[in-house]
């Protein structure tokens, strides 16, 4: 009976660390995804602005 209690305690310990690790990795991946998409968007809009400015100068 005592062993069962300890085993379930270990399971909770593993669950707690798994949640934090999985959560941290997922969050890091989400940040990387957001940085990549905003860089792509920024490059596209910069190009658009440059084109527009060239047209104005012409």
């Amino acid at each position, binding site marked *: 009976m005592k062993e069962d209690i300890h085993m379930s*305690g270990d399971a909770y*310990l593993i669950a707690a660390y798994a949640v*934090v690790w999985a*959560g941290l990795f997922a969050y890091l991946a989400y*940040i990387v995804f957001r940085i990549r998409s905003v860089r792509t968007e920024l490059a596209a809009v910069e190009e658009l*602005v440059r084109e527009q400015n060239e047209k104005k100068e012409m």
Partner: protein
Amino acid sequence: MALANRETNVVQQGANIGTRRTGDLPIASLVLGILSFIGMMVSIWAIFLYAPTDAIEGDPQRIFYFHLPTAILGMLAFGIVALGGIVYIWKKDERWDWVARAAAELGTVFITFALITGSIWGRTTWGTWWTWDARLTTTLILWFIYVAYLMLRSYMGRTPSSARAGAVLAIIGVIDVPIIYESVNWWRTLHPQQVITIGSEPQLPPQMLLALMISFVTFTLLFSFLMVQLYSLEKMQTLAQRLRASVE
């Protein structure tokens, strides 16, 4: 003419960021990332191999080494949100608003981890996932304040009025942080009291204290690393929005 100047300025800013973009991660970010990774490895060793097993709670007590740093940083992050808000209102410098937004997002993540790990730890020691204890309840209130802040900022967009409204919410909301800290002293709670208090001896054995300190330093490094990433993200998003507006 003013419009043209403004547009040129925006394009110039875009060009600057574009140039910086090619340099990829700034050196501070890289150093923080590497230190966080090394710290995480050392923390795992300290938590699972170096720190002794608690005589009463057994192994589940080791949840404490992640729970406490995430909780403290989650609370400190709201202090940064409020500070960012105050300085923004005072100086009207949008960089402080970016700091506040970044800290709010990160604080939400950290306080969520603290609530989840605390709930799991509570299940093993108290036999329940949740109880309306003063410390737990005030921390949950902070989580709701964070969510309210993020929803407000998301709804109002990247405007000066959004930054002001966010700053006001943060200044009012930060009152909850000292209440969380003192809740275990002010009320009779199930949650244990502070194990390390200023001006008194720590209530932990030295090995446990060292493992906790290593974990705390590691999470602080990780927090700083993520703050740098989120700050640059906020900066780029604001610039992208401005450039888009100048084209439309």
